[in-house]
């Protein structure tokens, strides 16, 4: 097996991975950087982000406001030292992007424009039309092209981390176009592999979001944190799951049920605001968890609209008028029109909540370090505990930047004066990967189809780990995922050839998702309270006495995982009431 020796290896070339790579290259041009991604960088799912990125820039705003919005939005499960660091770094990172050419929307005077976003007290979301993530990703990718020290390994599928001497020292990956395995020996590894929304059948996430990075870390012994917090976005197209950005509501779109009632006022987010005059942090600009939960209640009450795509509520943007819609929400206009056949200028569009984002991930601290020395993580795959129990829209894109950079700086610090690697020991690890793949290719007793298992998994996740959860459902979910993990050992690889074998990659991705699903279900069952995106019908209240803590799930080989807890860092905002009524201060 060919060995590639480098200083820092980065898994994932989305927003977080690219930001880390650039920070490494800028800080120390002599560093050798390997940027490994299973897709070409610009295909990474960061490109799908529409709404924008939050950072304090306007005079009426303050770091304090952003801090409190984030902590409250996260239902006090955020580590406040982390939030503090984040809100301070956010504008710098967004300005840095501006200096790299990101086409942010502008005010008439040439300064950067901001828009309102859910759960934010002030307008602080920077945006580039409704293609913000796309522009961020391409700006980063294009900027990265000027650094010769960033060596890209595009379409390399990362498989396992190499750990020796208690330190993460590299990884194995498969060159997808040849099917050849490679081992990367690195002094530090940064995982930026993105989320795992594909565990669910109905998701805004692209096909690549299968949690491989999380699973790799998990298998290597690093804990996954707060995995039970899965964000449902309230406004997804009911057939494809494509997202209609929160900016729809930020710009003034309203949500109504089948009686035409703006039902959010019935769920603590009233009183009703005048149509077309959205007010920050209330009604349609409440946080995502609350809005998605309100949909669920409407569904129970029979207030939803039955469509050929299932039960929906309506997002009405007609009053915005064609001009504003085309100026501010062109992508939304086009998506609804082409995929659903609804012209948002003329008709309200049916929508329903859709799995969107994972608050949880590889446990990291504010410096983006995992408990496993030499392993760093950033972006959606990491849980730095910025987002707590519910992420506010437009905080994630900035998180990629802030903690992507932070991971790079920490990695550089880590590699100073490290002893030389024991190549032979790493080789042993690499051979284990090779054996695993060989076994898959030569398996003769396979009896399970990949797509069959995958369907059972996604159905289980939707049924048992949805917006509202119960003890019974979660127990069933844990058992089912356990069963599927067992059966996964007998999955058949139909395609046993070498070149770009996506059957193989889908099998591997299913394995990753099952690892993540295990942590999600186990964590959810153990958390007997309702907080943010984790809502239990049997424990409807937040329980700060027992659960103001992060769930830490450790893998135990074939045994069920171990669940542990870690205290939340509270510095200056004691747990309070999340108030999204119009009367909030």
């Amino acid at each position: 097996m060919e060995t590639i020796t480098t200083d820092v290896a980065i898994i994932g070339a989305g927003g977080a991975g690219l930001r880390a790579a650039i920070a490494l290259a800028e800080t120390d041009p002599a560093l050798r950087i390997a940027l490994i991604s299973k897709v070409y960088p610009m295909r990474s799912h960061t490109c799908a982000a529409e709404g924008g990125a939050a950072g304090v820039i306007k005079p009426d705003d303050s770091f304090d406001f952003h801090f409190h919005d984030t902590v409250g939005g996260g239902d006090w499960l955020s580590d406040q030292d982390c939030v503090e660091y984040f809100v301070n770094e956010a504008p710098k990172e967004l300005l840095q992007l501006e200096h790299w050419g990101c086409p942010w929307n502008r005010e008439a005077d040439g300064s950067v424009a901001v828009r309102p976003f859910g759960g934010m007290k002030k307008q602080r979301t920077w945006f580039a039309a409704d293609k913000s993530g796309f522009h961020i990703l391409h700006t980063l990718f294009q900027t990265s092209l000027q650094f010769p020290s960033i060596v890209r390994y595009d379409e390399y599928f990362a498989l396992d981390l190499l750990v020796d001497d208690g330190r993460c020292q590299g990884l194995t990956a498969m060159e997808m176009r040849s099917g050849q395995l490679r081992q990367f020996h690195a002094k530090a590894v940064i995982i930026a592999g993105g989320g795992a929304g594909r565990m669910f059948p109905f998701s805004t996430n692209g096909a690549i979001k299968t949690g491989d990075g999380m699973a790799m870390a998990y298998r290597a012994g690093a804990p996954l944190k707060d995995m039970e917090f899965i964000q449902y976005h309230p406004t997804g197209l009911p057939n494809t799951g494509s997202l209609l950005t929160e900016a729809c509501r930020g710009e003034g779109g309203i949500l109504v049920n089948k009686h035409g009632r703006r039902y959010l006022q019935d769920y603590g987010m009233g009183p009703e605001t005048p149509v077309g005059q959205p007010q920050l942090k209330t009604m349609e600009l409440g946080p995502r968890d609350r809005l998605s939960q309100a949909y669920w209640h409407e569904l129970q009450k029979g207030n939803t609209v039955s469509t050929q795509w299932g039960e929906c509520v309506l997002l009405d943007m007609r009053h915005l008028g064609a001009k504003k819609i085309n100026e501010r929400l062109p992508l939304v206009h086009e998506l609804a029109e082409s995929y659903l056949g609804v012209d948002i200028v003329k008709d309200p569009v049916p929508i329903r909540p859709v799995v969107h984002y994972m608050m949880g991930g590889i446990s990291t601290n504010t410096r983006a370090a995992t408990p496993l020395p030499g392993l760093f993580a950033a972006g959606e795959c990491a849980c730095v505990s910025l987002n707590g129990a519910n992420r506010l829209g437009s905080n994630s894109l900035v998180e990629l930047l802030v903690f992507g950079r932070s991971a790079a700086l920490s990695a550089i610090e880590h590699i100073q004066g490290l002893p030389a690697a024991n190549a032979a020991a790493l080789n042993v690890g690499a051979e284990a990967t090779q054996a695993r793949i060989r076994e898959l290719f030569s398996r003769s007793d396979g009896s399970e189809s990949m797509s069959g298992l995958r369907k059972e998994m996604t159905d289980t996740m939707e049924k048992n780990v949805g917006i509202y959860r119960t003890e019974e459902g979660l127990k069933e979910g844990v058992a089912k995922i356990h069963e599927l993990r067992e059966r996964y050992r007998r999955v058949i690889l139909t395609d046993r050839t070498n070149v770009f074998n996506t059957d193989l990659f889908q099998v591997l991705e299913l394995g990753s998702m099952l690892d993540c699903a295990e942590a999600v279900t186990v964590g959810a069952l153990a958390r007997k309270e309702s907080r943010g995106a984790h809502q239990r019908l049997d424990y409807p209240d937040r329980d700060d006495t027992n659960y103001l803590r992060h769930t830490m799930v450790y893998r135990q080989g074939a045994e069920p995982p171990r669940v542990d807890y870690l205290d939340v860092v509270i510095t200056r905002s004691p747990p309070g009431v999340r108030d999204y009524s119009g009367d909030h201060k």
Partner: protein
Amino acid sequence: MSRNPLVREVSPTSWFFRHPRYLRYMSREITSIFVGAYCVLLVVAVQRLAAGREAWEGFLLALQGPASIAFHLLALVAAVYHAATWFNATQKAMPLQIGEEFLPGNVISGAHYVAWAVLSGGVLFLAGVI
């Protein structure tokens, strides 16, 4: 065993049959044959004019005849097709931004068509046709 990408050659002589838009492109390019030939005719015309009245009138007489009429019709079609594609293209090559907005492309090509009509009318007028 592993990579062996398959390269599909593009036929240099028949590629334009692959898609109607390529045929449209080639017909635009082929106008140059007729326009070019007509330009040669213009060179001859200038020579005849310089050679004096008789030569010129002989030239005008020689223009008559079915072959010449056919050639003229072809050249006319080619020139008009060229003109239309050219005007439609100008909006791409020279977009006009006024404030934030770009002038819609059809306004630019529309202006060209108007100018074309005026100029052609002018020439016809000077030539005593209208």
